[in-house]
């Protein structure tokens, strides 16, 4: 016949509630352990997510070519860049050159703003969107038009909420007409993407007096062609420069993988450290259960005398320790979830509470209750009935 688990459970509850302070202090170890696991893993996962998001925000399937060398032998011009489009796997290409410029509009001046020369595909390669107006077109590039597209931050600093299209700004003394402005993108790993002015590539080259293109943004046709496109480009660049150190091709998925590995390891480490505190909590439970077994020796003797078997006593004590760790686990989960949100709000970092870690840490807490409950419970159940009855 089966042991009445419901009654055993009730028995455990009344024994736990008969010593509230002690039970709470015992649970505290598990509470802290579980909530620490949840909070730290949530912070880790939040960090992973925000880093991943910001990398992906730079454009999907993005390959970046950087030319490191100097002089005519180690640089590419607009025609070279255009030939990239012929490579298998390559979708869109935009050469880019950047310079720092002072932007003037009416009475306000913004100093040291990053001015980027770009072509039409730059917009979609780097995942920008227009708030108003249009982006730089290939015709603008061909005609070296003095037009500019401004980032959301520049726009709000110079024009507030008013429309910027049709206004003029001076970049290093030259007048440009604004043809559009970009939707806010937030800051990426490369700094603010919104404090930016984009002009036709040719206009930028004229402005800086440098016709070499140092950076090329390439969008592969799909995730699967990234590797092919990269191989073709590397092949071309090696033929062109005959020096592997003169250039680098930067594959975004590699970065994503690396970042994913690093943050994943960080999360696991944080979770592991918190897990140790959960383990310590388990030792606390075992300690108190051992004290409790000694204190209740006589009770155990009486129960055994009137017919409790080894398993009856064993299960009674294991359930008690599971209830302790389980209650600690539930309180810990509540504190952990609440704490994650609070920390996310207060510290302004992203936290992601996944159901996986909540379930995992609860299961771990219960497992701790079982594992650390077995030894004391076995000790209780094995007590000699006669000696236990006589125990004072």
């Amino acid at each position, binding site marked *: 016949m089966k*042991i009445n688990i419901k009654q055993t459970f009730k028995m455990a509850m009344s*024994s736990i509630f*008969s010593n509230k302070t002690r039970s709470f202090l015992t649970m505290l170890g598990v509470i802290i352990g579980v909530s620490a696991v949840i909070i730290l893993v949530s912070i880790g996962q939040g960090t992973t997510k925000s880093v991943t998001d910001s990398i992906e925000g730079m454009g999907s399937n993005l390959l970046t070519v950087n030319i490191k060398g100097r002089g005519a032998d180690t640089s590419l011009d607009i025609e070279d860049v255009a030939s990239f489009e012929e490579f298998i796997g390559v979708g869109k290409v935009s050469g880019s050159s950047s310079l720092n410029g002072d932007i003037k509009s009416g009475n306000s001046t913004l100093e040291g703003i990053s001015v980027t020369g770009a072509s039409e595909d730059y917009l979609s390669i780097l995942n920008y969107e227009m708030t108003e107006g249009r982006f730089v077109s290939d015709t603008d590039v061909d005609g070296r038009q003095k037009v500019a597209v401004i980032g959301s931050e520049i726009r709000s600093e110079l024009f507030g909420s008013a429309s910027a299209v049709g206004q003029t700004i001076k970049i290093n003394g030259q007048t440009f007409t604004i043809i559009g402005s970009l939707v806010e993108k937030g800051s990426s790993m490369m700094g603010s993407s919104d404090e930016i002015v984009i002009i036709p590539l040719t206009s930028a080259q004229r402005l800086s007096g440098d016709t070499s293109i140092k950076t090329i943004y390439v969008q592969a046709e799909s995730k699967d062609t990234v590797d092919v496109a990269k191989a073709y480009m590397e092949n071309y660049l090696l033929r062109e420069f005959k020096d592997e150190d003169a250039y680098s091709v930067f594959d975004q998925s590699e970065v994503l993988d690396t970042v994913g590995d690093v943050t994943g390891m960080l999360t696991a480490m944080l979770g592991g450290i918190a897990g140790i505190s959960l383990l310590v909590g388990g030792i606390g439970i075992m300690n108190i259960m051992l004290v409790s077994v000694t204190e209740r020796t006589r009770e155990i003797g*009486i129960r055994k*005398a*009137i017919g409790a078997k080894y398993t*009856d006593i064993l299960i009674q004590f294991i359930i008690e320790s599971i209830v302790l760790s389980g209650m600690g686990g539930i309180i810990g989960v509540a504190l952990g979830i609440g704490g994650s949100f609070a920390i996310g709000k207060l510290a302004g970092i992203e936290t992601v509470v996944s159901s996986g870690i909540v379930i995992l840490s609860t299961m771990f807490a219960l497992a701790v209750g079982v594992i650390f409950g077995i030894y004391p419970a076995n000790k209780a159940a094995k007590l000699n009935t*006669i000696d236990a009855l006589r125990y004072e």
Partner: protein
Amino acid sequence: MTMIKTENICKNYFMGNNELKVLKNVSFEIKQKEFVSIVGPSGSGKSTLMNIIGCLDIPSSGKYYLDGIDVSQMGASEQADIRNKKIGFVFQSFNLLPKLTALENVMLPLIYRRVSEKEQIERARMALERVGLDDRRLHRPNELSGGQQQRVAIARAIAGNPPIILADEPTGNLDSKSGIEIMEILNELNSKGTTLIMITHDDKIAHESNRMVTIKDGIIGEGASA
């Protein structure tokens, strides 16, 4: 009909290299419905004998039949079953669980017999009624007098309807008035068919029994019957 039968029971303990013979060839019988008292000075082997009769311990050699079952070499789990079904214990110091109510204390043997909770409560209340304490069922032991506590203990002993009650100095911790009450209850249970075995050194109480078994230095001798 024989309820308890022992054949040449010996119990030896080892203290270092010395073998201590606590019980020496103890043989006796107790019939159903009998009221037998076991008397003897301390150190006589009385407690050891009681532990063996109560299935809390097993003899080193010899046979012990309880209600026709050979229990002399039973394992702990089977012994627990026998204790639960055949024997109701009444202890000198009551041995109630202080954190449980009277009712919960009386329910204990039924919990370990795995009957439903509803039946546990029913039978426990019936037992409490028989000792006149159903109205105190929600009181904890420390809210009851010594005599009442021992009555709760008797209720616990009879809740599972065992054929035998084994009482170890049941009046030892009580004033004489409560002691008389307890003896009345035990006598009444015995008159209704329960075999009653009582360990005592109170001659007056021992004389209420049908038969007295004396034990001295581990050897049994029949005393005068009352």
